[in-house]
């Protein structure tokens, strides 16, 4: 097969750091090419070089595309040649309809007047291609993330895409939505569209990719061909540069007395008062235990956690929370924290951290009383605390005075963990603790969780990645449509059993 894209010896330097070091990437026409690598390895930089975000001349090396030397100066240049990138963070306007979004910046018009009929007709065609049955006039706001992703792809198709680049397309998707998306990629491939997919999820890479290029520390370290079989372990080894035979660290399992009990928990939707979101949930967690909550997105896992944590979500909340058998007041966030609860949010950037502030600022934020006397902060003590957690969690940063916005996902997550550890909680609720962070950092986060349970903390872990729950938890509650539909011990649990509990309801 002929090559569609060949990037030769690409080197891109930023002041003080070489982001890409003589990277070669060749993509054949009509294939799905996966790029794997840890966060910060240089995948996104490589794609920015390709798409003209970093204009020709600002990097060394050559790009050959579609049989000619390409020198893109802007994103527009590359789009005109049929290269479309779909980013992790979707670039749709929520208040506009699907049709308006698809043709945004590329409107069907005559003399500045939008041709609505033409727009809607074309949109319907495109939606059919990506397997969406929603009306073109539906507001993007009102469809889920999975469908939004498909709208993005429809938008790309509207531009006669030749090379479609998907940057972690399934990071925010549920298992079945992810599958749909991957199947769509295979279908597009059958229609002759070439795809590059950037992903952390190796099972997905194995499912769709024809070729895999692994990037580590700004260098392309290996190129694997699906025809010769793709071994996940091989990819992981190349990504992290060491053997990762074990993806989940071992932990001695010994559960102590019951720490957290939640009884008859009911929650209604904050805006639609008649909609009950959480139905009669009761569960418990013992000291030293890691308890998982499995369920599809929208099953109410985050709503459950947030309603318990200071009633941060929902209204009409009823039920009881007991710690060590004693009912506790968790009606406000500060009371929940005082009672010994901590909640690591699912979305660290918008709910967990103050990105413009330093690691020190974020570390002490939930427990300022611990670094102050009579309302006056002791900055020396603050620094000491932040340093202590930086060392304990091995957060990689030049100093605790670094802004957290500059850190990678894994290190940001460590700062969030540090913030909650400093409140000395008895119960930690972790909502998607490893979302969007790379394999190496995941392992470290797992180790931290194990350390916490070894110290006798009760840990609740919410995750969309079932292997993670299976690898980490002592028990797993299965949640569906706002209720618990089953409880499995580590020995009983498997992906199949969890799924069958979800679908049998």
């Amino acid at each position, binding site marked *: 097969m002929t090559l569609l894209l060949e990037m030769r010896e690409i080197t891109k330097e930023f002041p003080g750091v070489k982001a890409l070091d003589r990277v070669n990437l060749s993509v054949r026409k009509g294939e799905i090419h996966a790029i794997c690598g840890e966060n910060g390895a240089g995948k996104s930089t490589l794609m920015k070089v390709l798409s003209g975000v970093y204009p020709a001349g600002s990097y060394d090396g050559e790009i050959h595309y579609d049989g000619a030397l390409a020198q893109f100066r802007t994103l527009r240049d590359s789009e005109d040649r049929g290269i479309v990138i779909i980013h992790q963070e979707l670039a749709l306007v929520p208040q506009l309809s699907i049709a308006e979004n698809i043709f945004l910046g590329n409107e069907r018009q005559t003399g500045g007047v939008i041709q609505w009929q033409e727009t809607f007709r074309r949109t319907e065609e495109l939606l059919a291609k990506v397997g969406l049955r929603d009306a073109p006039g539906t507001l993007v706001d009102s469809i889920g993330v999975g469908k939004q992703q498909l709208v993005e792809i429809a938008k790309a198709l509207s531009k006669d895409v030749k090379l479609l680049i998907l940057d972690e397309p399934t990071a925010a998707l549920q298992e079945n939505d992810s599958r749909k998306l991957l199947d769509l990629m295979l279908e597009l491939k059958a229609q002759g569209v070439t795809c590059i997919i950037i992903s952390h999820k190796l099972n997905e890479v194995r499912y769709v990719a024809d070729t895999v290029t692994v990037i580590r520390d700004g260098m392309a370290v290996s190129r694997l061909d699906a025809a010769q079989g793709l071994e996940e372990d091989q990819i992981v080894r190349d990504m992290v540069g060491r053997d990762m035979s074990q993806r989940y660290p071992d932990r001695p399992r010994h559960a102590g007395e019951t720490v957290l009990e939640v009884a008859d928990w009911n929650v209604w939707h904050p805006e639609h008062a008649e909609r009950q979101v959480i139905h009669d949930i009761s569960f418990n967690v013992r000291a030293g235990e890691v308890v998982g909550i499995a369920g599809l997105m929208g099953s109410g896992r985050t709503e459950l956690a947030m309603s318990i944590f200071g009633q941060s979500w929902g209204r009409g909340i009823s039920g009881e929370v007991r710690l060590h058998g004693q009912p506790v007041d968790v009606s406000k*966030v*500060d009371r929940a924290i005082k009672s010994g609860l901590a909640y690591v949010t699912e979305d660290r950037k918008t709910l967990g*951290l103050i990105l413009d502030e330093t690691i020190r*600022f974020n570390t002490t934020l939930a427990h*300022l009383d611990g670094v102050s006397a009579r309302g*006056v902060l002791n900055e020396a003590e603050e620094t000491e605390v932040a340093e202590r957690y930086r060392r304990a969690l091995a957060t990689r940063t030049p*100093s605790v005075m*670094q802004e957290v916005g500059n850190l*990678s996902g894994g*290190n940001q997550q460590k700062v969030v963990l540090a913030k909650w550890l400093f409140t000395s909680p008895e119960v930690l609720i972790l909502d998607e603790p490893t979302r969007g962070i790379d394999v190496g950092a995941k392992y470290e986060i797992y180790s931290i969780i194990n350390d916490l349970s070894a110290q006798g903390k009760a840990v609740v872990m919410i995750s969309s990645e079932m292997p993670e729950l299976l690898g980490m938890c002592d028990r797993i509650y299965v949640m569906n449509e706002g209720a618990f539909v089953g409880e499995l011990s580590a020995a009983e649990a498997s992906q199949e059993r969890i799924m069958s509990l979800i679908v049998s309801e």
Partner: protein
Amino acid sequence: MTMHTAEGTGQAEPQGLRSYLRRHMREYGLLFALIAIMAFFQVVTGGTLLRPVNITNLFLQNSYIIIMALGMLIVIVSGNIDLSVGSVLGFIGAFAAVMVVEWDMPISVTIFASLVLGGLIGAAQGYWVAYWAIPSFIVTLAGMLVFRGASLLLLQGQSVGPFPAEFQLLSTGFVPDILPREATAGLAELFGVRNFNVLAMGLGVIVATVIVWLGLRERARDKAYGIEGEPINFFWVRNIIVLGALLFLSYKIATFRGLPNVLVTMGVLIIIYAFVTQKTVIGRRIYALGGNRKAAKLSGIKTERLTFLAFVNMGVLAALAGLVFAARLNTATPKAGFGMELDVIAAVFIGGASMSGGSGKIVGAVVGAFIMGVMNNGMSIMGIGIDYQQMIKGLVLLAAVIFDVYNRQKQG
């Protein structure tokens, strides 16, 4: 985008003077801008700007802007805005005038009642912003109209005054010197001036010494934790400039009539607010609230109450400014404070606060207010018309913010 340049290493942040300067361009830029503007007007006004009487005037003229800028900084850091402060200033001035002049109430009672009323006004606006999540722009825009109307109503469209002499002391009084006139006569002769106020000079020296001492202490602490702070030569250059300016100003003030009462009030407030915003739990929480309200709330911070308090505080400070302003004019007029909210907001933004909340410093806001003040004063001395003055001030505000954004982009 998952690529971050600081990933895992320290090499992404090249150390050194130039990079340090680039990252802190804003703070140094502000200081140098003030100095440059002062130097410029000193030259073009033929030395009038820095004459003792004019320096004293500068403080008197800008005191109410600065007092309000302290509260406005907190409101803006918390992610809000208050457009009503000019009207509130006028309304409280009118209220005080009616109380003192028409009802013959004692001054102390009037001051107390005015400050309480200011707090209530702040509470009435803050309530809607904090607990009903109504945008502060709208609530305070309404407040601006309401209190402008209320002062017209209170004054029946007339000016009310004059105030008794003791009330005027709020603004135009001077703190008596600690030494009698005869004792300082020698000093005055030594410097070749008519009189020399030991208190003003002494206080200047003390404040300057404390600033350097605190700075050195902070550096020593940072060093103990291995925190890379300001390069030492920058520290000294900055401190010498600040010291020089302080000593120079205290000397000038000492050779005029000494410390104006309002300067003392203002100075004490600046110190208190700088301390509260930088060194206390409540200050920290306000920055967290403005930086990311949701994350702050999920960290156990009572975001609604903090927002409410920020507005109460603003109301009290606007009331205090209203008293000072009325005392200075010696009369309450229906037009008092008209458009002043914009000067206050401009001062805070020139001082480096961000529109989206979460950043900005008290010292910045004060310097910002002085930049505006010096320009007002200098241009008036030069006899530039109000038309050009407004245009120039507008452009300076725009330039300051563009400079800000430009710097941030270069860093990013």
